[in-house]
């Protein structure tokens, strides 16, 4: 069944909680690195690696660098899953 952005964000939430070690973390499509404690460049890599593993997909270097917020991330995942 085709998914939508909101479903992807829902699936991303436990990954974010895991990566940023905060079980109560909530994310929306507007969430950016500045909104989440500890989201620095290395944590970004950990996040990307965790997402790649969970969704069984791969990002290019350019995609990894360009992701500006959670919404963009979810949209990209959606595109790759399609």
């Amino acid at each position: 069944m085709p998914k939508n952005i909101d479903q992807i964000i829902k699936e991303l939430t436990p990954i974010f909680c895991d990566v940023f070690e905060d079980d109560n973390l909530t994310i929306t499509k507007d969430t950016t690195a500045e909104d989440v404690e500890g989201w620095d460049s290395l944590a970004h890599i950990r996040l990307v690696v965790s997402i790649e593993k969970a969704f069984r997909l791969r990002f290019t270097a350019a995609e990894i660098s360009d992701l500006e917020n959670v919404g963009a991330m979810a949209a990209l995942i959606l595109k790759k899953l399609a």
Partner: protein
Amino acid sequence: MYEELSWLPPVPANFSELVSRATSGHELAHCATHALGDNQLRRIAKKLDDLKAAGISLSPLKPIRLGVVSNATTQLIESTLKGSALRFGLALDVVHAEFNQIAQVMFTEPDPFTQQKFDVVLVAIDHHGLPFVPSPGDVRAAEKKLQECLHYLKAIAQAVHCKSKAHVLLQNIAPINQSFAGSYERRLPGTWIWFVNRLNQELDLLDASYTTVVDIAALAANVGIENWHDPTLWHIAKLPFAQRFNPIYGDWISRILSARLGRSRRCLILDLDNTLWGGVVGDDGLDGIVIGNGNATGEAHLALQKTALELRERGIVLAVSSKNEDSIARSPFRGHPDMILREHHIAVFQANWMDKAANIKAIASILSLGLESMVFVDDNPAERMQVRQALPEVAVPELPNDPALFSRTLIAAGYFESVSFSEEDSKRAAFYQDNAKRAAILSQSTDLNSYLESLEMEATFSPFDQMGVTRITQLINKSNQFNLTTKRYSEAEVRQLIDDPAYFTLQIRLKDSFGDNGMISVIICKLGDITWEIDTWLMSCRVLGRRVEEAALAYLVDHALSSGAKKLKGYYLPTLRNTIVKEHYKKLGFVCVSADAESDLWVIDLTKYQRPVLPMKINDSRKSSM
């Protein structure tokens, strides 16, 4: 297998709760014994730091101060290493040299990195960090470059050791997939493939007194070189390998840290039925078990035997723990032509009906080895869980369903990592064997009831029905051990019993937290006005010790009483194989009224019967259908 650490038990659902609740090094180390992903390793690593910062003693964890020198980004593996080392009872302190400051580490005096005291320094340089330039076909240039690179790595190891006094773990080089010329590439001097091969060979000849080579080439080969290298991550953050392999990398390094402290495992304890051979020797008989060449399952089990024997030649002591009659358990070792393991290879042979944890304790005590030296291999997940709960020090690998993968899993787990090999090692197994005089069985002292509770058993009691006829007949004709009378009935006879008003029949199914065990027990009673007679009572040995027989009796008593009966009687007819149920009725509170060579007769007075509290839920299909 490697990426998922699949020999480790799965991460418990309440993992983050367990970690946040942990207040000691011991508890934290226990959290690490699961197949943790990298984020979970990070969580326990942080908790370790928190405990340390709070001044809490981490005893009995062994503190190790580890320095890391690399040409790549190593910040992300810091928590991986700390978390993984906890699995081995080590509390790491990790200090990185500045990114790509290798030359400074080597030549600056004094250098702030090596001035710190380290126990161990990990030199993690990959192919990106070597001064190698390909010169395909130019032998002289190729040899010169090879020597330069070798000298470079040696000089780093030497400088680190001399300045910090630490032992050096030097990673060898993961091969890279740059075979421009295909298969010919490795023969062509000056190519990357040629170079990495040669360099790794040279590294194996290094002075081992202060350097241990970490075989990253083997790790990369195990997971696949194509998977190991991740050019995207290298370009974006100078990460030396695909980060999904962090957990196995951390385990790989920790094994060596642990082996250097003499903490590798020393004894391999093997289950028998469906582990060392296919089938159940007590039920299938010596000629019914599956072992040996010519049969895929038999060959798979044989491969595990070969692995065990090879480990024995490395000094690993072999022992057996099996729920079996001793003489039956030993019979394949003595009399089966296809077995390669023989009795004289086994230092301690514990075949009895005690729980496995008690047997493993007995083995450890006989061999005078600690429980932390033990590895226990069993195909049965319930047994594995019992041992893990009762004896958390013992390593109990998860096994895949396919016996063809048993051996591979055991090897992948890396329990027997060693940093040296001596002549004594090859003789050690025999030495232990001499010491282990007689397998004295120690008392059953583990907490069996909490184990049974945790199985969340659910037993379903039903009369014989059409659906069950085939399996009932099979059990009646196949069960030899837990079988009071060993009476055999044909499928037609079983079918007749379904509607025979003169008989009370019972089939029992058992589920537990590991899944459905299917039909595991069959009872046939002949009705009587005052006394019911138990004609057949048998049970699968897989569920021995689960108190199912007590539940069965309680159920029989209920139905006998409500029919107006006052007594139950049952016979024990001894055979060569059913000695385990000799005391069956006695244990259940029956009184022996006559005994001779042919049979013992036991009776219980139902009006005085006391119902036990049992660790399982009972479903009575007779009730639900009414």
